[in-house]
């Protein structure tokens, strides 16, 4: 199947779907604005997931060559990311049934989620710098609105403004980097950039370095790399918690796929520079994320910092993504991206359930939660243990691969920093678990059992099942990631 047809499928389904869902908000009847919008979004997403799975299995069964057009790559890497972000979207949309139901703009909410998902899917396939910018904006702009969806909540407004400003900066920086690339190589197609760099003598002049730095800064804002992380905690705390899950598990991952395309595929000849830069960024990101997470009193904020720290682990893979550790490092990146998407959405959605039912998300309000919300507590505990990298849960395996890649790539100090950070992170992950399971409830709180929101509970159980199944049978994702990396060549 040619690359264009695949992409057209997605574009048509999502565009028609989101426009239809958005138009539902004009209806006067609440059931149409709510139920129809919800089910229509589910249908859209299910259809696109079906296409992805179908195409991926066709690809894996018949092993065709990756196909290219001027704008898109269709290879296992694109499918891998498309699959991951669509799973996250599905989990988020499902959970919104309980979490966002009473919102007046529900139809618009779903429509924006679908648009942003389309942006992420296109980003997974994009092979041209201009296409990357278009998809990047398509992914980003709806999320600015979604972050500020609670108009009457000042935190939500502040988060949206902060996120919007920094997001606009990142787009600008990205565009600047792209125009410099065009100036250097005369093209915006990634393959052509690679060829141009191979043949020409451009290596270490200041302009190249500037381009690299601008790319890192532009992508880094979405990838939550220190020092471009400042918006993350505020945005994740102020946004509706489902949107925090979407941002952390979805859009952030899209940053990684373009980073792989640009740095590993297009710019390998400048390796000396960016590997060291990524190593330093990885160290700073995970350390700052973990240390800051230790001191947080609000659980979404803690998860936000934890999400920053997890980005640091993924960056370890970038730091050693050159021979001899290239294959292992990229497998580790993909594997951890997938695992992190599942773990982080599970954690955020569990917090969304707590927020929905108790209206409180401070760490103290989680005391003795397991008596009141056993399913939510269990899912949160499992996802936190997985984030900490306790075997046999999925997070352990991908961290193992990343650390092994670091040692193989002769950056053993980075692996050491990684494991020490993991140990540090257990400090706050276990603290939440201690709150939920060990601490007595504080005086004034309700003690009765809360009826847990049914759809979120189901979503949490599915996410927990994925965490455990991938943990027990890691080859499932590992092999897929390996296929994706090997196809990159």
């Amino acid at each position, binding site marked *: 199947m040619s690359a264009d047809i695949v992409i057209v499928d997605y574009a048509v389904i999502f565009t028609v779907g989101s426009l239809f869902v958005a138009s539902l908000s004009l209806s006067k009847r609440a059931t149409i604005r709510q139920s129809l919008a919800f089910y229509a979004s589910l249908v859209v997403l299910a259809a696109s997931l079906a296409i992805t799975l179908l195409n991926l299995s066709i690809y894996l069964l018949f092993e065709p060559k990756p196909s290219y057009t001027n704008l898109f790559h269709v290879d296992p890497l694109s499918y891998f990311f498309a699959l991951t972000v669509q799973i996250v979207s599905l989990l988020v949309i499902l959970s919104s049934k309980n979490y966002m139901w009473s919102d007046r703009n529900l139809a618009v909410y779903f429509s924006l989620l679908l648009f942003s998902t389309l942006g992420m899917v296109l980003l997974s396939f994009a092979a041209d710098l201009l296409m990357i910018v278009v998809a990047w904006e398509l992914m980003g702009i709806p999320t600015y609105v979604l972050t500020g969806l609670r108009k009457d909540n000042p935190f939500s407004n502040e988060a949206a403004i902060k996120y919007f400003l920094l997001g606009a900066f990142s787009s600008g920086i990205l565009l600047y980097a792209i125009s410099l690339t065009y100036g250097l190589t005369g093209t915006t197609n990634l393959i052509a950039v690679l060829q141009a760099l191979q043949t020409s003598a451009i290596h270490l002049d200041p302009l190249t370095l500037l381009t690299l730095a601008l790319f890192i800064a532009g992508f880094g804002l979405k990838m939550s790399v220190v020092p471009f992380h400042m918006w993350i905690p505020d945005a994740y705390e102020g946004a509706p918690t489902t949107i925090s899950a979407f941002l952390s598990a979805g859009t952030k991952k899209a940053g990684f796929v373009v980073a792989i395309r640009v740095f590993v595929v297009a710019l390998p000849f400048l390796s000396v520079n960016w590997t060291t830069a990524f190593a330093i960024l990885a160290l700073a990101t995970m350390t700052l994320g973990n240390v800051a997470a230790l001191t947080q009193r609000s659980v979404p904020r803690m998860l936000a910092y934890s999400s920053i720290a997890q980005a640091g682990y993924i960056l370890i893979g970038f730091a050693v993504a050159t021979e001899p550790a290239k294959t292992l490092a990229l497998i580790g990146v993909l594997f951890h991206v997938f695992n992190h998407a599942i773990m982080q959405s599970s954690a955020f959605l569990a917090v969304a359930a707590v927020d929905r039912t108790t209206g409180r998300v401070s760490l103290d309000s989680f005391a003795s939660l397991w008596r009141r919300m056993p399913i939510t507590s269990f899912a949160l505990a499992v996802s936190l*243990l997985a984030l*900490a*990298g*306790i*075997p*046999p849960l999925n997070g*352990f*395996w991908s961290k*193992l*691969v990343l*650390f*092994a890649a670091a*040692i*193989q790539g002769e950056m*053993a100090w980075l*692996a*050491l920093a990684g*494991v*020490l950070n*993991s*140990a540090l992170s*257990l*400090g706050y992950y*276990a*603290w939440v678990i*201690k709150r939920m*399971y*060990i*601490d007595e409830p504080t005086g004034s709180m309700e003690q009765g059992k809360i009826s847990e929101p049914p759809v979120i509970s189901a979503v949490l159980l599915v996410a927990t099942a994925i965490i455990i199944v991938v943990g027990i049978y*890691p*080859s499932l994702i*590992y*092999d897929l990631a*390996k296929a994706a990396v090997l196809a990159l060549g």
Partner: protein
Amino acid sequence: MLDIPLLSLMIFIPIIGSIPVYLLGRLRERLAELASLVITIVVFALSLCMYGSLYVSKEGASFRFVEGPYSWLGGFGVDYYLGVDGLSASLILISSLLSVLVVLGSWDLITEKKPIYYFLILLFEGSIIGVFCSLNLILFYVFWEIVLIPMFFFIGVWGGPRRKYAAMKFLIFTFVGSVIMLLGFILIYLFTTPNTFNIPELIGKIPFWVQLLASAAAFIGFGVKLPVVPFHTWLPDAHVEAPAPISVFLAGLLLKMGGYGFIRVNLGLLAEASKQYAWIFIAFGILTMFYGALVAMVQRDLKRMIALTSINHMGFVLLGSFAGISALTAQGAVYGISGAVFQMFNHAAAIGILFMLSGYIHEQAGTRNIDELKGLRVGMPKTALVLILGSLAGMGVPMYSSFLSEWMVILGAISVNRWYALTVLIPLLTVAYFLWMIKRTVLSPLPEHIHYHDMHNRAMIGLLLYLVPLFLLLIFPSLLLGIVDPLSLSLYQAAGGG
């Protein structure tokens, strides 16, 4: 070779069985107690079969009941690979035995949240058996970490007044140790040809510089568990706060993971580095022994004293294994290494009865403070009897096999360097503080206003069961040494000695 996957059964019967036990417990709590007793007895029976078969064949040095290697994470050297030799078999035997006794003891001592408690007990049992028979370093690590989770909840949920602090401290300490150990494993994997995590394929192939680094990493990982003195501070807190049956698991089994790791990984895989730098480990071992003994002497809390006893006793394991690997003669090596394994086995049983006893005493007298416990001989004669019998096991006097194991370790150490004969002071110190404790509690007059109640006969029998293996092994030490000695000898020879 048997076709039944005996080892997998011993791991997964408890792990999978824990779910029905939990569900039964939700129905009626008594059912959870009975069902977990049945499961632990089944596992014990299986481990007796396994041990018996190994003993009859006299093949303690090679791996038997091997399952696998089945690829788990293909392409990354992670296999499902199990097997037992003399070291694993003896530790699995004591693990399954202690599990039965702990379940029995918990009937009296654990009163709340029973379903989840027995669920965790079985999870713990299955994963610790997994630790002792994994032949793949990552599989080993996976089980090693699973053990942490039930233990965290045991201490945190069922513990004493400072349980939250103790649970967090335990978790962080051991987790830091284990992730550093994991780095060592990855190092071994990457820089050995062939690239593998499988222990039998790694023996004798690891380059020396990797051995050095991996030894340092493993020393931290296993040293936290054992515990070796600078890393020991989690232990007294965890022990004091944990409920008595869990202290038995902690001291009896969890600490053995450290000792097992030292022998399996440091002596087995990193033999050359261990041999060359044995003196460092021996020095830490002796430091641990003296520290444990001296600090135990001044404790007021009976349970804390017992906890520090186990630090003291675990020092013997470190001393014995590394004295053995660097011994000048094969005889000395067998004394050292076999003595260390023997000591682990004996300590598990001896510390089991002592901790359980501290739980009963706390329940009957309302205090564990040695100064406040008076006149036990009159006030609770049965308890006093068991306390004396148990203390004798802790002291290592020739009434129990703990005497033999300590003696073997010291002999092994002397065969390396005569100055190590100073360690003879350790049993002396141990005897001193135990006798002093008995003098103050058992032999003191009973104050008039205090009325204790004594333990049931069933509890007393349950406790005396711990002493059976100690007694048996004093008379027939070859029951254990028969399968451990060949292993010690082969470890020594593989390290280039004799």
